[in-house]
C-alpha cells in the first residue's frame, strides 16, 4: 500500500482572470495522518483543495493519488471524488437540498449505490457527526454549526479515504469548535486521513501531526508539528508567529518551572506538566 495518499508535484494554476492560484506547488499527504494547511488569505489553500478533488486541473505539474497520476477522464474523476471528500468553507454554498437526509444522500446516489445502501450510509454519516436526529429537518432551520456538520456528513456518506475541510472552524463559536474537533478525532480514529485549512497556528500545533505552510501559491514547508518550535524562521517567512504555548513553555522553562525538554501542545498539557513539576521534590527545590 502506498504510504503517500495525495501528492502534488510542481503544480501551477492560474485562473482565467489572470490571478495566481498555485505556483510550482509540491505537497505530500501521508495515509492516516492529521494535516493542517496554513497560510494567509489568498495563499492558494482552496485552489490546492480543488486540485485534490479534481475540480481544477493543473496547468503544469502532476497530481497523484495513491501513487498514480490522476486520470481526468469521467471515470477517473468519479474514482478520485469518491475517495477524496471536500467540505467547503461556507455551508450555504454546499447544501442545496431542502432536507438534511436528502442532502446527505446526494453523494452516495451519485456513486450509483442502491437505495438501501444509501439509506444506511446516510444514517451512519449523520450519526458520525452527531446529527442522527436531524434527518427530516429542513436545512434552512439549522444553525451554522449544524449546517457545517451536515456538510461533513454529506461527504462522509461517500466514505472517502481523505477528508479535506476548508477552514472548518471559521464562524463557529468555542463550543461548536470543540464539538467539531471531537467529530474529527472520531473520524481519524476510523482511519480517515484528514487535511484542514486554517489561519490559526495555535490550533494547528495543538491538533495536527503535520503542518504544511503555504504562501503565494506555493507550499513553502512541511513540518512535523512536534518540531514546530525549531522552525520559527519558516513560520516567520509566511507571516506566522510561533504558537503561544511554545513561547509560554520557553518562558516557564527559562524560569526553571518546566523542564526544557517538555513539549506541551495545548494549555491542558502545559498545566499537567506544571502540576507534575510541582509534585516532584527535586523540581520543588528549584522553585
Amino acid at each position, binding site marked *: 500500500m502506498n504510504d503517500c495518499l495525495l501528492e502534488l508535484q510542481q503544480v501551477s494554476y492560474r485562473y482565467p482572470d489572470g490571478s495566481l492560484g498555485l505556483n510550482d506547488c509540491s505537497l505530500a499527504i501521508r495515509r492516516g495522518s492529521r494535516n493542517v494547511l496554513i497560510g494567509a488569505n489568498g495563499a492558494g489553500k482552496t485552489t490546492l483543495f*480543488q486540485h485534490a*478533488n479534481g*475540480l481544477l486541473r493543473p496547468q503544469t505539474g502532476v497530481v497523484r493519488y495513491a501513487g498514480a497520476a490522476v486520470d481526468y477522464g*469521467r471515470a477517473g474523476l*468519479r474514482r478520485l*471524488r*469518491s475517495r477524496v471528500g*471536500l467540505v*467547503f468553507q*461556507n455551508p*450555504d*454554498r*454546499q*447544501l*442545496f*437540498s*431542502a*432536507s438534511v*437526509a*436528502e*442532502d446527505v*444522500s*446526494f*453523494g452516495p*446516489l*451519485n*456513486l450509483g449505490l442502491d*437505495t438501501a445502501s*444509501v*439509506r444506511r450510509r*446516510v444514517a451512519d454519516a449523520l450519526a458520525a457527526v452527531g446529527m442522527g436526529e436531524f434527518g*427530516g429537518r*429542513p*436545512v*434552512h*432551520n439549522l444553525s451554522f454549526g449544524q449546517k457545517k456538520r451536515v456538510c461533513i456528513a*454529506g*461527504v462522509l456518506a*461517500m466514505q472517502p479515504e481523505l477528508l479535506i475541510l476548508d477552514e472548518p472552524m471559521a464562524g463557529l463559536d468555542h463550543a461548536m469548535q470543540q464539538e467539531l474537533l471531537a467529530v474529527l478525532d472520531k473520524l481519524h480514529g476510523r482511519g480517515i486521513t484528514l487535511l484542514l485549512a486554517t489561519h490559526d497556528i495555535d490550533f494547528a500545533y495543538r491538533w495536527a501531526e503535520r503542518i504544511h505552510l503555504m504562501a503565494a501559491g506555493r507550499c513553502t514547508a512541511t513540518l512535523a508539528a512536534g518540531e514546530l518550535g525549531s522552525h520559527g524562521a519558516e513560520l516567520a517567512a509566511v507571516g506566522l508567529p510561533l504558537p503561544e504555548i511554545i513561547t509560554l513553555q520557553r518562558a516557564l522553562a527559562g524560569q526553571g518551572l518546566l523542564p526544557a525538554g517538555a513539549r506541551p501542545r495545548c494549555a491542558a498539557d502545559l498545566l499537567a506538566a506544571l502540576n507534575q513539576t510541582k509534585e516532584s521534590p527535586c523540581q520543588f527545590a528549584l522553585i
Partner: protein
Amino acid sequence: MLIEQAAYANRWRAISPAAKGLFAAAGFVAVFAAGRPLTAALVAGGLALLTVVGAGIPAARYLRVAAPALFFLALGSLSLAFSLDVSAGAPHWRLAPGGLDQLAETGSRSLGALAALLFLVLTTPLSDLIGLLRRLKAPELLLDIMVLCYRTLFVFSAAVHDTLTAQSARLGYATPRLALRSLGQLAANLTLQVWQRAAALHVAAQARNNDGPLCFLTPDFADSRRHCALAGLAGLALISLAVSLR
C-alpha cells in the same frame, strides 16, 4: 414562511405525502362534481375545518395564508358579477345578467379548490412534495429547478435581510431618494450573488461526483399503504357526498 412553518409543525407531518395528495385530489374532484354552489362551499368548509382541526394548523395562520388568494378571488368574482354598461349615457356598473349565479358557482368552486390546495401544502413540506413528484415520474429537469429554487429562496431571503440591515445601519433608507438608490444597489448585489452562488453550487455538486440530474433520497413513510387506503376511502366518501347533495 408561514406555509413552511405549518408544513413542518402539524399533526399530519408524518403521514405519507401520497395519502395527503390523494385526498387533496379527491377534494378537487368533489368540488367540481358538486352540483350546487352550496355543496361546493360545504366541501370547501369541510376541507378547511379538517386542515385546522385535524392537522392542528392555527386558524389565524390558515386565514393569513389564505388571505391573498381570497383577495384575488373576491376581485375576480366581482368582475364576474358586475359589468360596465356604456350603452346609455355615462358609463356605469350594473349587475351582469346571470352574474350572481356565475359568481356563486365559480366562487364556491374556487374556494373549494383553494381549500384542497391549502390542505396539501400546509400539511406537507415542499421537500416531501418534490419526493412525491419524483415518484410520480415528473420530469427531472422540473424537479431539479424546484429543488434549487426552494433552497435558494431561503439563502437569498437571508442575503436580502443581511444587505437590508447593512444598508439601514448606514442610513441607506433615510430618505425616499436614498431608499431608491439602496434598493437599486440591493438588486445589483443580489444579481451578482445569484451568479456566484450558482457557480459555487455547481462546483459543490461536482465535488460530490455529480455529472447529471440532481438525485436525492426520497423520504420513507411508515404505514404509507394504510394511509393511502384511508385517504382513498375518505376521498371517495367526500366525492360521493358532493354528488349525492345535488
